């Protein structure tokens, strides 16, 4: 009976969509299975982690739990921020567990390794939280989809307007690994092309506890802006020290990558007033509030931008599977790029051929203590940046049609 049903379904879809006979149609293995790979207990656990799993679960439930009459399943695993751990999990998922796509994906180093495995297996990588822009530029692949933000959008969103406002001279405190270097180099380009000047940079090892030495060096550089090209606890530690040594009074301190949970971990007296760029803020309008409220009820905290992104991109993937009538990656990815993402997260959005989802980004300011109504009230949106402006043009060699 099942077999007949499947055949009927396939024929129906084939007729409706005039898909060529050679193309795999229908749902493989009688289910659509989504893997969520994230850092579940390490430094990035708050910005994706279990929250990304919750977001993907919500997307599946909101979609109805089935697609084309087949159940949607979710598996999740902890990559421990280690590329080798992440890629062996994903290999196992593809080889033994019929996983169709992998989302979550936090540390850029893990994502780099995993995206390669997925491309080799012709499976789609739904990158929700990684910052590196390599996945849609020098390491681009027809199967990569990057949703929430990237270092280019952060630099364009935060650096450009500050240079424009007369903050010419910059100094970087950079996390000494791939992500920090990428962020610093992209931001440096933006500073130079906007007519500013980079006076210097200091590379602090990942996980540095005491930043006072770096803050002193930044202070003696005489720069107008001290840019923190780091993330997570490196960011909170460096900003705390900068404030303590009076750097926040003598110069402007710019956080290049700040998630809501990092901002919440700081005294509003220290962080208040800082401007930054984000791909999502929960308290933007009725739509974002409605979704975020449901998320908070389940997860216990407001959504970080990557978690909202994970929901949005999972939803878009499932819609594309439904519209394509198959979970075959080549067909689905084409469908995903044809359809316009449009939900509480993705505003004025398109998924470009290079896999970059281009959408509105937001310049926000961290609120001061007296402006905050409650502990979740942390950003004030100051400006909306259009996707084209934020993410820049697509590379010709990554134009996968």
């Amino acid at each position, binding site marked *: 009976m099942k077999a007949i049903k499947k055949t009927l379904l396939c024929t129906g879809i084939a007729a409706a969509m005039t898909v060529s006979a050679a193309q795999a149609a229908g749902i493989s293995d009688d289910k659509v299975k989504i893997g969520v790979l994230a850092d579940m207990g390490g430094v990035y656990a708050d910005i994706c982690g279990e929250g990304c799993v919750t977001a993907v679960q919500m997307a599946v439930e909101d979609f109805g739990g089935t697609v084309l009459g087949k159940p949607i399943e979710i598996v999740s695993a902890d990559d421990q921020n280690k590329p080798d751990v992440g890629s062996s999990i994903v290999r196992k998922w593809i080889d033994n567990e019929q996983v169709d796509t992998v989302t979550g994906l936090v540390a850029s180093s893990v994502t780099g390794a995993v995206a390669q495995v997925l491309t080799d297996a012709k499976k789609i990588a739904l990158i929700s939280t990684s910052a590196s822009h390599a996945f849609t530029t020098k390491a681009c692949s027809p199967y990569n989809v990057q949703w929430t933000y990237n270092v280019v959008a952060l630099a364009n969103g935060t650096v450009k307007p500050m240079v424009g406002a007369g903050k010419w001279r910059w100094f970087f405190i950079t996390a000494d690994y791939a992500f920090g270097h990428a962020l610093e180099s992209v931001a440096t380009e933006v500073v130079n092309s906007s007519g500013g000047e980079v006076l210097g940079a200091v590379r602090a090892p990942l996980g540095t506890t005491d930043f006072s030495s770096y803050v002193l060096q930044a202070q003696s550089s005489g720069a107008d802006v001290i840019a923190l090209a780091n993330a997570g606890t490196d960011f*909170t530690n460096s900003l705390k020290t900068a404030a303590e040594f009076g750097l926040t009074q003598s110069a402007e301190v710019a956080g290049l990558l700040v998630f809501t949970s990092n901002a919440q971990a700081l005294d509003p007296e220290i962080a208040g007033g800082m401007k930054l760029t984000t791909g999502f803020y929960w308290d933007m309008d009725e739509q974002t509030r409605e979704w975020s409220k449901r998320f908070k009820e389940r997860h216990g905290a407001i959504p970080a931008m990557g978690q909202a992104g994970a929901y949005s991109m999972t939803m878009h993937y499932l819609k594309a599977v439904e519209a394509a009538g198959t979970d075959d990656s080549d067909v689905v990815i084409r469908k995903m790029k044809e359809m316009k993402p449009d939900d509480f997260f993705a505003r004025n959005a398109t998924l470009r051929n290079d896999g970059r989802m281009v959408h509105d980004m937001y310049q926000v300011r961290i609120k001061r203590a007296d402006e905050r109504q409650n502990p979740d009230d942390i950003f004030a949106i100051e400006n909306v940046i259009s996707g084209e402006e934020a993410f820049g043009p697509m590379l010709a060699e990554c134009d996968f049609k």
Partner: protein
Amino acid sequence: MATFLGINLFGLFGQLLVGLINGSFYALLSLGLAIIFGLLKIINFAQGAMYMLGAFAAWMALNYFGINYWAALILVPLVVGFAGVLVERFLLRPIAGEDHLYSLLLTFGIALVLQGLFTQIYGASGQPYSIPDALKGGTKLPFMYLPDYRAWIIVASVVVCSLTWYMIEKTRLGAYLRAGTENPAMLQAFGINVPLIVTLTFGFGVGLAGFAGVMAAPVYSVSPDMGSNMLIVVFAIVVIGGMGSIGGAILTGLGMGIIEGLTKYFYPEASTTVIFAVMVIVLLLKPAGLFGKEA
């Protein structure tokens, strides 16, 4: 600006002072570890977790009970020390006769459990904790701006370290402690309750980590992994100073802070490795450490 051989002297003084501040912090942290190892021969891998516990306890005291920084500075070490007493009495004592490896693995396990527990409850991003009002602001020195809180770290560390050193090396209680490690059976024969001394010493060493945690809360991120980041460096300091040498741990802590500070100035990329490079050199030349006694 004064320069010497192309080096900005003012910048260098600033780095030296910052190094000294960090060093006094290291001294405070390694002190507890040195006491526990020196007197009890327990390699306490949970010391970093206890430091984290101290910082979180200060945060909880403020947010749940409205207890301010100064009161926390007294109360938290007692609470954390009491946690240490429980660990010693119920977990470490049953394996007291076994190889050192057992206590090492047990304390390592405790550290992982505590860190996991706090990540589960409070998340990995950390919690905000402000500098107390009395210590906000700073002093403008000719070569740098010295925040009051950093000056306070030096003062507190010097006071606590010297008191502890004096108590162990110069008082009757300290003599009992040292005798207890030399020959517990003999000391017991003199009518001294040796197991009690062991428990209290462990509690004291752990309490020092709690104290360091409160000191750290206003300046570093109060997060579950703050202890594991610190622990390895502190262990290296204790090894360089000579395992178990209390004076050695204090002096090495200060010295390493300065060496690290200079590395951050001249070649920041190596700042997390320099202490281990020193450790390797010291162990090659003096296997018992700078201040350790050869066995």
